[in-house]
């Protein structure tokens, strides 16, 4: 007889650690006297994430295990992607600890950290879910926490505005996703992904196939909100601009990674099993062209609109939209290498984006303006900071010897290796990359060529400096020796047999 204790709870260890730490932190925050610096909470949170990473590493060799009646599964996919989430969150929380804005933050410092942990927990549950219910619960946990995080600077107008926008847009997107999922449930009678996968190939009736097609679009539209692809990207610039910088980094990296995780889960464990009644092609192949079009539009919109931005955070918001487009290219091509490509790109993207936002935070937090001219003469004010920002920008622009380049290389190979090759999509990608040179190197121009407004040196907190340095170092190392990451992935990713 199965009891609660007969489940193998050990595979949830990373989630439990995050959960316990987050709950504990909220209590500590409640009872800790007002005068105690809330940074200590942040460091405990950081320790918790590190502990979770360690426990996850201990689980790497574990076979595919499911518990709670297949609603929670620890498979290769979950393991490697969870590692990205945890690493990203660990870096972001250090950003949050060092965040010292001029206004509207002091009182809510404690909340900052445990909400971040809660959001992370949601993302982790998503990556491990084997059931639509857990998938959705994870998604909501992530979204709810993010809404609050965005509005955390309560006396700041922009922060409020962006939180409002985020909530409204986010709820609509969630509703649409849920509506799509309800079709799936209605047709298959189950919310379990594996049972669905067994049932769906049996459907041959065209009527049902249409419904499933609608379900696909609903789900995809709703979820693409999370990764901010065009035309569902309009929220991103406003929210990225208004949110506190560490939250922006969180949204840009962890939340976006989670978005890709859930999209891949849903696409491959549900829609890959639906076959067209006439040609017997999977539904995925039929909708490939739409994915490709969305990827193309996203890359174009992200990169072209970024050209006109003066606000650094907005600029990087558009740049992150463009990067979502690049990753979508890998999804749209549906090559056998898709996981390798997406995983590696998310790794590279996470490192360079967190690094870039860390530098942005250091440069802009003390001033009222986030205008690009804040970067003028950064090389004179802090050579180390400027050079490392240079590395991030080169990597974002996809210049060789950086991780971003290898990531793009991967995407190209994937796009050209399938038959017929996605030559147009590949060309759009490279053309928009060139467009991105204009704004990326515009920042470079400010940093290296323009004279600074003040000659004062920039003081960087040691913790920040370490984060920035780690990101820069990893960006270069993964660019020069990408096999370190690729080998790891090939060893533990196991080509995701658990999906097949």
């Amino acid at each position, binding site marked *: 007889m199965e009891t609660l204790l007969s489940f193998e709870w050990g595979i949830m260890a990373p989630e439990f650690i995050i959960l316990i730490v987050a709950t504990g932190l909220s209590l500590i925050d409640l009872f800790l006297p007002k005068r105690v610096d809330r940074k200590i909470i942040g460091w405990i949170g950081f320790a918790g994430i590190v502990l979770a990473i360690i426990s996850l590493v201990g689980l790497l060799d574990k076979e595919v295990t499911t518990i709670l009646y297949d609603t929670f599964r620890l498979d290769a996919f979950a393991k490697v992607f969870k590692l990205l989430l945890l690493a990203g969150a660990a870096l972001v929380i250090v950003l949050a600890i060092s965040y010292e804005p001029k206004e509207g933050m002091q009182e809510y410092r404690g909340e900052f950290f445990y909400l971040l942990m809660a959001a992370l927990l949601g993302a982790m549950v998503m990556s491990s879910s084997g059931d639509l219910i857990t998938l959705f619960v994870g998604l909501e946990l992530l979204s709810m926490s993010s809404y609050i995080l965005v509005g955390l600077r309560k006396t700041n107008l922009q922060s409020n505005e962006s939180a409002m926008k985020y909530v409204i847009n986010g709820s609509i997107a969630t509703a649409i996703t849920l509506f799509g999922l309800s079709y799936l449930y209605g047709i298959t009678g189950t919310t379990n992904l594996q049972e669905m996968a067994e049932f769906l190939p049996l459907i041959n009736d065209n009527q049902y196939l249409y419904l499933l097609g609608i379900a696909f679009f609903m789900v995809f539209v709703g979820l693409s909100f999370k990764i901010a692809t065009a035309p569902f990207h309009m929220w991103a610039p406003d929210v990225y601009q208004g949110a506190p910088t560490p939250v922006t980094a969180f949204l840009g990296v962890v939340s976006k990674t989670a978005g890709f995780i859930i999209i891949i889960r849903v696409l491959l464990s549900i829609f890959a099993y639906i076959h067209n009644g006439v040609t017997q092609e999977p539904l995925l192949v039929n909708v490939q062209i739409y994915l490709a079009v969305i990827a193309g539009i996203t890359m174009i919109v992200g990169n072209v609109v970024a050209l006109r931005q003066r606000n650094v955070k907005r600029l990087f918001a558009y740049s992150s939209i463009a990067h979502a487009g690049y990753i979508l290219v890998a999804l749209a091509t549906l090559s*056998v*290498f898709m996981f*390798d490509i997406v995983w590696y790109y998310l790794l590279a993207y996470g490192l360079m984006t967190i690094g870039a936002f860390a530098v942005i935070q250091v440069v802009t937090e003390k001033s009222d303006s986030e205008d690009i001219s804040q970067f003028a003469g950064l090389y004179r004010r802090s050579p180390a900071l400027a050079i490392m920002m240079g590395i991030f920008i*080169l990597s974002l622009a996809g*210049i*060789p*010897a950086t991780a971003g*380049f*290898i990531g793009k*290389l*991967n995407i*190209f*190979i*994937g*796009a*050209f*290796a399938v038959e017929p*090759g996605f*030559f147009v999509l*590949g*060309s759009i990608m*490279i*053309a928009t*990359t*060139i467009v991105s*040179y*204009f704004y990326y*190197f515009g920042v470079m*121009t400010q940093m*290296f*060529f323009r004279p600074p407004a003040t000659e004062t040196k920039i003081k960087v907190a040691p913790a920040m400096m370490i984060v920035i340095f780690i990101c820069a170092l990893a960006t270069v190392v993964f660019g020069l*020796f*990408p*096999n370190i990451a*690729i*080998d790891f992935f*090939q060893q533990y990713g196991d*080509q995701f047999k658990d999906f097949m």
Partner: protein
Amino acid sequence: MNFPYFLSILIFSPLLGVLLLMFVPKKNDKLIKVIGFCATLPALILALVAFFQYRAGADLAALSERVPWIQFFWFKGMDEQLFAIDYELAVNGFSLIMILLTALVSTLAAVAAIYIKKEWKGFFMLFLLLEIGMLGVFAAENLVLFFIFFEITLIPTFFLIGKWGYFEKERAAFSFLIYNGVGSAVLLIVIMILFARTGTTNIDLLSTLLNSGDSPMSSSMKLGLLIALLIAFGVKLPIFPLHSWMLRVHVQAPPAIVMIHSGILLKIGAYGIIRFAMGIFPEQFTSLAVLIAILGVINLLYGAFLAFVQTDFKMVLAYSSVSHMGIVLIGLAALNEAGIQGAIFQVVSHGLISALLFFLVGVLYERLDTTEIPKLGGLAKGMPLTAGFLLAAGLASLGLPGMSGFVSEFMAFLGLFGEMPIIAAVGVIGIIMTAVYILRAILGMTYGEAKRDFVGVTDIRPIELFPVVTLLAFIILIGVYPSVLSQPLQATLETIMLGLGG
């Protein structure tokens, strides 16, 4: 050739200078300059060693290196070599000469860095990085590695132009970046398609694979890839109408960088066309020969005519570069031994001559603050030595027998006359025009009435004499004794001719 990793050490030797410079205080400009200059020497010495040993009969294959590097997309049981990119370096006669040329011009350009006025530390660090990129480009044995080195040249050059250039430096830097970015983007697409479809980027492997009986690509696709390659390298070379960025760079960049730029960076375009376009797609290249010849003649004539009407001496030289690169295309289009040899000779010879001319431009600008021909005049009286060298360089550029320019032009046209006499005949007008515009510009500057007084203007200094004399010596050496180049090139030429089916 006696120790392992010879080529890697050669290529990355400037890195030592970069590391040393990190620990030198910013203000100590003398030490920075000395380190910057000395850091270029190991590469030059090693290149010379390799060259002489090769001339003495050593086998260049002994220099090849291969270390496993990146393995994309590996499945259990998959072929180990599929989708693998190795770190592989090798040289043949042609690339060895290019490496030698690069090392030489870099060392001399480091001397020209005396004209840099600020932030020497940053300048030399970027300069040495640029040298690594250039050396690597010529030694890379696979396309991805080539591309990586190729891009490494791009970024330092952007900064070197944008920070240390003249008035419109930022605009020049951006137009350099974007044009070359587009070029390398097209190149990357070609490389990635080849890689995705064949699973390798090794140059030799690709050329055997694609030209064997069961090629994995249709011939129309190969033609498309070749055209893309020509565009990619055409931006670099530059081929008309893709040249406008290069004019700006020539005018705005500091002298040391223009020497490198017109001496080496433009040559990467020619190298790429010879090595990849001809090497990997010989059949398709043959079918485009007429088109390439016409493009070459257009380049030659267009550059020559526009050089004739320029008032700024830098612009004259910039257009003259366009014009001279036309001769490379003309030689290649001939598809015979004389033509291709002429093209390669032109690559080397123009590298030396333009480096010399732009160094002299630096000498002039440093003293007179202008290179406008109407504002100059009577240089021969004020700065006799400089004027003399300028004349010598000009004569080399217009192809005076006994200097390297003559040999290359002669052979290129010899080749083309054998295949397409009419196009060649039209092209010869360009040779005449070259003499006209060079003499107009140089005589206008050196002779005639002095437009200004030369009080307090010193003639060329000993330290400046060193690059000038060295370059001139090489130019004359190749001119009177061409086999110093043609002998090392022999084996490479035979391989190319074999590929072309000749």
